[in-house]
């Protein structure tokens, strides 16, 4: 092999190394932040942040961005609980086929550090293709769209569940 091709291979090796590093970072980019919390500001401020969120969400298919509620409950079985207010603000909990216990106790799926929560406060569980919410005898009550929950009631996509200072939204 000639000297020039060897030099090219030598530099090519360094380029290949960096190609691996940069493409690994490219794969990571979508996964760097678990959730993006945008404070709901006033007027113009809000539009600006939304625009940025859209721009950041479009480039990769991995980050299919923001979806708000209001879809039919049967559309998707895979769902998320998104905590929009309270000490766990910004957390999302992917829902599978198992029930989710919410409360202060360490054994709960979602552990909320809040004096206004009971240790086993409420439960979200799947039933016949949709999600249900049930209060477990909490002291300060569970509210679904400002209605107090006692017996199990259906939890539709986009509904807001309040317990103590925490608000949780069901998303697709």
């Amino acid at each position: 092999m000639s000297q020039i091709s060897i030099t090219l291979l030598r530099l090519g090796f360094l380029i290949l190394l960096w190609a691996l590093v940069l493409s690994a970072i490219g794969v990571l980019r979508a996964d760097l932040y678990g959730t993006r919390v945008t404070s709901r500001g006033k007027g113009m401020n809000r539009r600006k942040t939304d625009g940025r969120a859209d721009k950041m969400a479009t480039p990769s298919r991995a980050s299919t961005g923001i979806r708000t509620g209001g879809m039919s409950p049967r559309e998707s079985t895979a769902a998320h609980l998104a905590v929009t207010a309270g000490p766990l603000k910004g957390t999302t909990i992917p829902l599978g086929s198992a029930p989710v216990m919410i409360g202060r106790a360490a054994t709960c799926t979602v552990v909320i550090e809040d004096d206004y929560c009971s240790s086993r406060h409420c439960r979200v569980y799947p039933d016949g293709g949709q999600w249900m919410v049930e209060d477990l005898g909490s002291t300060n009550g569970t509210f679904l769209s400002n209605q107090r929950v006692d017996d199990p009631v259906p939890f539709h996509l986009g509904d807001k569940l309040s317990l103590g200072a925490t608000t949780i939204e069901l998303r697709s």
Partner: protein
Amino acid sequence: MATVAEIRVHQGRRSEVALLAIAVMIAVLARGLVDYHADVLELRDLGLYALTAVALATTAHLVLRRYAPSADTVLLPAVFALNGIGIAMIRRIDFAYAERGRDTTFGNVQIGWAILGIALMIGVILLVRDHRVLRRYTYTAGLVGLIGLLLPLFPVIGTEINGARIWIHLFGRSLQPAEFAKIALVIFFAGYLVTNRDTLALAGPKILGIRFPRPRDMGPLVLVWLASMLVQIYERDLGTSLLFFGIFLSMLYVATERLSWVIVGLGMFVAGAAFAGTVFAHVHSRYEAWLHALDPAVYASGASEQLVRGLFGMASGGLLGTGLGEGRPDLVPYAESDFIISSLGEELGLTGLMAILTLYVIIVQRAMRTAIGVRDGFGKLLAVGLGFSLALQVFIVVGGVTRVIPLTGLTTPFLAYGGSSMLANWMVVGLLLRISDQARRPSQVVT
């Protein structure tokens, strides 16, 4: 109120295939360049090597697809590339030694260790289906780790190589038990801290706005500190001692979220190390070789010769390096193990070395991201501990070679020649992949 936009984790493993392909190309090209410059390039051998690499990558990928489908996709390619670079470099140093009449087969042995390491990683993934099982063995792991750490001190099996007593001799092979003890102790620390973090985090007096722990809660910290001091004084290895103390301190910080532990712990370590440096002659000579490496008297005595030669090797590499197979890395003693970083710095230059360090950053970042994503406290601490152990080990080695901290006998993970380090670090990767699978999988089981 706030809007919360969740970014979905990409579930497929297709990105891993693409990254693995680049990693295999790196490994094969590296070996091709090395063989060409040693005038032993045979396309048949290179093809066989490429086939082996592809087969290993495919096997690992398929196992992950089947048994840990949500596991992280970047971890495996990054480690594969590091391994490939390491093997090529060690092979290159074999050729350099051969030219000087020293017959070594480090490169081929290292290929064997890498294959064994990948097999071990697959074994970990198949055996440990849920990392939470490991919590049951908290105290067993603690005992195993402590014994492993102190094993080289026992008279018959412990051996001293180059002044450091960190090897044991078993069945005609030498082995560094500390590498495996590292994993056991991380499991122990995670299990112990997840149960006891509240007492360690809450009580204590407040001085200068920082809440300090109560003296009676200092027990565990003092114990680990004593163990690490013992290692430093009797095994004569600052690196191992710093590694264990650092892992414990970082996990303690993550468990309690209190900076005061880090301040107290680092203060204790610096004080202990300074004390050992003034009282014990062998520790003192190590510090001397670090602080006055370029002093002609110290260099002439041989204490800093290796370090200085490594520095000059890296300097001659410059920005782009001399090219794989075109430098003289063999002028540095132990160029294939302790000083592989300076060999790589010489032949790949600053550009290559930065890429290698970035690969380590990526691996550690994945461990930390896994810790954020996983939903149980034990898993969080385990992922942090494993990730930090890799990060700290790289810091200690690269810091030692570049004269940031005193030189120690630790190995560069995945790059340096050595079976213990290779096997143990592949096990760490296996555990990290297992935890990341749990972290990224939608929740199915509620306990």
